[in-house]
């Protein structure tokens, strides 16, 4: 087999047993890999309506068919599971070096099922699979865990781990690599935690075989040149996602004060010329020439001495603008804590914003906030609340449930201030500011994800059908949102870095050439086929949710987004709201779904998903 290693590692934690299975040819051809594989397994193997924190849940870790080859930007890994935060199908993506090493160990996919009675970690060294005791590292932060396990296994090993947040079943606990890249969203860390699985450590000695090395090398040259000559390359190399923070604030995309979108005084803290001052080092993921990762050093203030992976765009928002906080030092320190504890920064920041607004409005009193005064713009409250969430102390016990559940538990009208879709907290992209992007988030099978349909037209400025897309307009937004979602799913069959794929304009044609050169599978030589596979995967994911009665009723934005216009007068997005009814109808029509937001029989048949019809209809 070319490109793929051809093997799934099935790990049963209850029986402490690991077996290998072969990848089925028809699954490869119809779903390609990565996100496609995980969706397929979850459709076929998860019963309906299971408890995400019960032993029946499974977690699928996959890499794409190009992982471990010479191609750039394709070595990421994906975790798929039923989410304890949303109760939906979920996919979460991470970078670093783990993905490539998993491929070198000989596997395309690991499927974890059951539950261990005691804390363990998996050590995968090619065909040797060990279930090792993890008592010593249980309770350790992610970085300490990684250092310890590297000593116990192999200094060259790579791994994914959970921190105390995952052990404490925080609903938005992240899965973290040894190089601090995270599959943050959706609570995959809690799924590992409830299974008593502290880490998966891999070390490999194999390499994927390539169908046509010469063709791969030629296409690689094309890929390198595409990236090298892209105008987006140098700001991204210089500052990573920090290059866009202030720009997105001005554009109205970066929402402030729990999405109230009031003016953020001092937002100039986020200017690139200011953020640049903190950088002491650059780094990258496996097989990436961009190296968008940065290390920040804090030299002043109460957090002086901190040297850590920098806050990405989303985190500058989550611990910054969304909390009215402009103190870069506190944002950086809070980011470090989130990484160490293993927490999704977006959900954590959103939970803190929710709590601050409730306190401001008198819905939560001091007796419920552990005596803490929760104020907008207070830089020092943030690290304290992160700790309490991760360790489920005091108010942290409530916030660790996520804003949706926390609001249900509090009542008193708090639901109005819980900014989520299907339980997943909204990210740093205001749906009112970019309507197709908002539509993608509203209809996403995993809730309000900003990466489920990458906003290549409204934010990256690429033309659609030859014209610039007005982000505030409603025209054709259903079709545009569908396209964004389908093409993102297509690229996630190879688990592409979305920055490489979309910001540097790696076309479907180029992906198709790489895929065919690596695998020799003739269907993959047609870029149009790849797009059909993306649509197929998206409809499969929607069907997994529909099986659990999660349909269009849940394709809903919070009231703040549909009824409260953007207040700020320092942005072109002033006055915008999200016209949900019109946009959703347009989207379902573009999708060929029924009025309940479910794929029709005809659509499933068109996409070759007939077996879903048998089971669902």
């Amino acid at each position, binding site marked *: 087999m070319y490109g793929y290693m051809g093997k799934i590692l099935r790990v049963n934690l209850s029986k402490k047993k690991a077996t290998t299975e072969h990848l089925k040819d028809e699954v490869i051809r119809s779903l390609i890999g990565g996100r496609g594989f995980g969706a397929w397994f979850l459709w076929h193997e998860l019963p309906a309506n299971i408890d995400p924190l019960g032993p029946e849940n499974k977690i699928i870790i996959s890499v794409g068919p190009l992982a471990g080859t010479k191609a750039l930007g394709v070595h990421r890994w994906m975790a798929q599971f039923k989410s304890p935060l949303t109760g939906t199908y979920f996919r979460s993506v991470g970078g670093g070096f783990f993905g490539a090493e998993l491929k070198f160990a000989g596997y395309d996919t690991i499927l974890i099922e059951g539950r261990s009675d005691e804390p363990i970690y998996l050590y995968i060294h090619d065909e040797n699979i060990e279930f090792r005791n993890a008592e010593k590292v249980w309770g350790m932060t992610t970085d300490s865990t990684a250092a310890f396990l590297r000593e116990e296994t192999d200094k060259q090993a790579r791994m994914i781990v959970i921190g105390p947040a995952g052990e404490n079943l925080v609903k938005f606990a992240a899965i973290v690599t040894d190089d601090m890249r995270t599959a943050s969203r959706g609570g995959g860390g809690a799924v590992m935690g409830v299974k008593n699985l502290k880490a998966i450590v891999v070390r490999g000695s194999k390499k994927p075989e390539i169908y046509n090395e010469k063709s791969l090398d030629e296409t690689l040259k094309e890929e390198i040149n595409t990236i090298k000559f892209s105008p987006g390359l140098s700001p991204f190399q210089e500052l990573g996602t920090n290059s*866009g923070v202030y720009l997105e604030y001005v554009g109205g995309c970066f929402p402030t004060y729990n999405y109230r979108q009031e003016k953020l005084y001092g937002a100039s803290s986020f200017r690139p010329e200011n953020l640049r001052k903190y950088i002491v080092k650059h780094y990258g993921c496996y097989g990436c020439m961009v190296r968008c990762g940065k290390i920040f050093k804090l030299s002043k203030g109460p957090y002086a001495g901190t040297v850590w992976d920098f806050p990405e765009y989303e985190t500058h928002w989550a611990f910054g603008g969304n909390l009215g906080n402009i103190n870069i030092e506190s944002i950086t320190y809070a980011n470090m804590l989130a990484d160490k504890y293993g927490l999704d920064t977006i959900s954590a920041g959103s939970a803190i914003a929710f709590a601050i607004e409730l306190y401001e409005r008198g819905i939560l009193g001091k007796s419920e906030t552990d005596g803490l005064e929760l104020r907008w713009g207070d830089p020092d409250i943030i690290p304290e609340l992160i700790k309490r969430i991760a360790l489920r102390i005091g108010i942290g016990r409530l916030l660790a449930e996520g804003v949706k559940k926390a609001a249900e538990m509090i009542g008193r009208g708090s639901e109005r201030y819980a900014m989520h879709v299907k339980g997943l907290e909204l990210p740093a992209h205001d749906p009112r500011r970019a309507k197709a992007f908002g539509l993608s988030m509203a209809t996403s099978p995993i809730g309000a994800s900003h990466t489920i349909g990458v906003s290549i037209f409204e934010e990256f400025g690429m033309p659609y059908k030859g014209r610039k897309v007005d*982000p505030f307009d409603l025209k054709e937004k259903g079709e545009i949102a569908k396209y964004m979602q389908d093409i993102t799913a297509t690229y996630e069959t190879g688990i592409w870095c*979305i920055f490489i794929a979309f910001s540097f304009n790696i076309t479907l044609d180029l992906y198709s050439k790489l895929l065919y050169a690596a695998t020799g599978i003739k269907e993959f030589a047609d870029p149009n086929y790849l797009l059909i596979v993306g649509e197929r995967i998206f409809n499969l994911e929607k069907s997994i949710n529909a099986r659990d009665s999660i349909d269009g009723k849940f394709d809903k934005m919070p009231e703040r987004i549909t009824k409260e216009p953007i207040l700020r007068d320092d942005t072109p997005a002033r006055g915008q709201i999200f016209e949900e009814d019109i946009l959703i109808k347009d989207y379902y029509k573009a999708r060929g779904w029924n009025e309940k937001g479910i794929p029709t029989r005809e659509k499933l048949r068109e996409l070759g998903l007939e077996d879903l019809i048998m089971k669902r209809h």
Partner: protein
Amino acid sequence: MKVFVRLMGKILKDSNIHEFWFSLNDGASLADLLKIMEEKKGLKIDVEENPIIFINNLLINLPEGLNAQLKDLDKIIIMSPAIAGG
């Protein structure tokens, strides 16, 4: 007439923000502004690189929007596409 210009992102091959008032003849277009900025200030904006342009908070379509006529005190934002998220 005078217009306010704000340039953001890697639009000028550096990541800093540039903001200034700029004098133009009455009736000048956006294209005139870009040309004169290059001539007088050495600030070259390459429209082939997909900049996002707002005039008074309205998005401008390219290339036809280059003919948009400017007025006194107009506020023009020109930014490179944002790579954010993550």
